[in-house]
């Protein structure tokens, strides 16, 4: 049984806009999935099905085997945590500590446990020392990290992060990438909704590409970034490194390389071989 099972889900908004038409996928523990696609294609509508923020018009979504239509969204939030794109849609406390402790307190955990989880989550996102700060006094990048901490304190099994790298600089992105790895290692599944393909190449093992309310590609990151025609139709540009590897495919470079390090190692070894051959001829 999948952690989350989406079975032929259709979703139509009140204004009759059909945002999802027959979507199916399974999400397993410890997965890191990038949900990509242009705005208006259905990514966010799909992600909101995972924790019951939206419930299917047709079809069903099972979270650990339970139909989301049969459980209130606040119950599901303990299993599937959702971090909104815009921090101001989520933050309502006047102190960082209160924001992060709200979830576990509200879930009825003992004060000791609440304190321990709050301290852990704040430290995990690198906000130790800011406990008494007003969330709106944090810069945008730190505010986004705070919204992740306030979900982490609930220790959900699945995280949905909506655009976690928007407005983050290099250090903020690295922090989010490390955090995702730590959450994976601890056993959680992480779903990242993002437009940042360099980030996808660095952190996600699987890509789900959504366009026109359907899943148009679902597979390993490496495989999907090779499907240039499908990506082009969805107006997605693969990372610069993958594009360069593609352009050098005629010269023995595998076209499915994802990171700077992978391509550097590959080019270095090709060049070394050429040099050795050259010196043998000499």
């Amino acid at each position: 049984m999948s952690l989350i099972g989406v079975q032929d889900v259709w979703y139509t908004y009140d204004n009759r806009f059909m945002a999802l038409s027959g979507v199916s996928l399974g999400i397993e523990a410890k997965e890191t999935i990038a949900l990509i696609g242009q705005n208006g294609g259905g990514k966010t509508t799909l992600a909101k099905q995972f924790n019951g923020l939206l419930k299917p018009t047709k079809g069903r979504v099972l979270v650990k085997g339970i139909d989301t239509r049969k459980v209130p969204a606040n119950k599901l939030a303990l299993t599937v945590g959702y971090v909104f794109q815009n921090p101001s849609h989520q933050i309502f406390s006047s102190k960082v500590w209160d924001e992060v402790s709200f979830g576990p307190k509200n879930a009825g955990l003992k004060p000791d446990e609440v304190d321990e989880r709050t301290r852990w989550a704040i430290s995990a996102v690198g906000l130790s020392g800011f406990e008494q700060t007003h969330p709106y006094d944090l810069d945008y990048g730190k505010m986004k990290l705070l919204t992740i901490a306030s979900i982490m304190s609930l220790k959900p099994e699945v995280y949905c992060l909506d655009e976690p790298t928007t407005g983050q600089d290099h250090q903020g992105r690295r922090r989010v990438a490390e955090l995702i790895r730590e959450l994976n290692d601890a056993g959680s599944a992480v779903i990242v909704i993002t437009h940042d393909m360099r980030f996808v190449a660095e952190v996600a093992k699987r890509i789900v590409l959504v366009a026109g309310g359907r899943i148009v590609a679902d597979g390993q990151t490496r495989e999907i970034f090779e499907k240039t025609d499908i990506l082009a139709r969805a107006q997605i540009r693969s990372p610069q490194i993958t594009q360069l590897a593609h352009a050098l495919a005629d010269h023995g470079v595998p076209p499915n390389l994802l990171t700077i390090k992978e391509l550097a190692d590959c080019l270095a070894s090709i060049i070394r071989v050429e040099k050795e051959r050259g010196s043998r001829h000499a």
Partner: protein
Amino acid sequence: MPRVEVAVRVDALTYSYPGHAPALHDISVKVMRGEMFGIIGPNGAGKSTLCKALNGLVPHFYGGTYGGTVTVAGMDTMKHSVAELSLKVGFVFQEPTNQFSGVSARVDEEVAFGMSMTGFPREEMLKRIEDSLRQVGLEGLEERSPFELSGGQQQRLAIATVLAVKPEVIVMDEPTAQLDPVGKTEVLETMRALNKEGYTIIVAEHEIEELATFADRIVALNEGRIISEGSARGVLTQIEQLKRMGVDPPSVTELSHLLAEELGLKPHQYPITLDEAIVLYRDLLEGGHS
């Protein structure tokens, strides 16, 4: 007479917001007419503050402590109001809807709104609305509500409202940060086209790989100070320096830095764009076969 060619001159600018440590420290930069000038740096580096110093919002609107001089299109920003400066310096914000008047029901009215303070005759206004919407590729959408447009269209409308005033300099503060990839491309293409038409553009931008394809010069800021300034290539090939301050260099530039020893490359030979990298590595790999 090279003096007339200088569009922006910032001289020893030090500035603090009221009650804060300096946001900018002894900043001196010069932007020539017709240049595409990029401002890069991590969050909190002072990029946005520098942008706002160019149209007088710093210090006229924010107050604070100010030293040094900023001259834009021949005007000392301390000696002119934001309203006067706005005729010479167009400003595009990160969030396009923050820029909209909120009172216009139509795209063309929104463009007219920006000009209504300037007292142009009606004929002239109509012509400028038409011209500026065409320049950003929004012709045909005159009757739409600004709030029905996509993010990229909204940002292009924000640019059109600025163009209608025919400024000498356009300053953009992370204009693509809130847009999806389609919107980002639309806005970046618009910037490129305007620069080709001769507009001087100063842009704070996180999209380094894009900036590398069209910036003439770049200044890198960190903690309110200039870390480096010069040609796009000069600044973007200083890999270790950029990474130390928390900025990702273009992937292909970082790649070449990793291979520098192996390939015998000097920093000024590093590619900064994908196209340059393709040429360089194809040559290298083909050279090896011969």
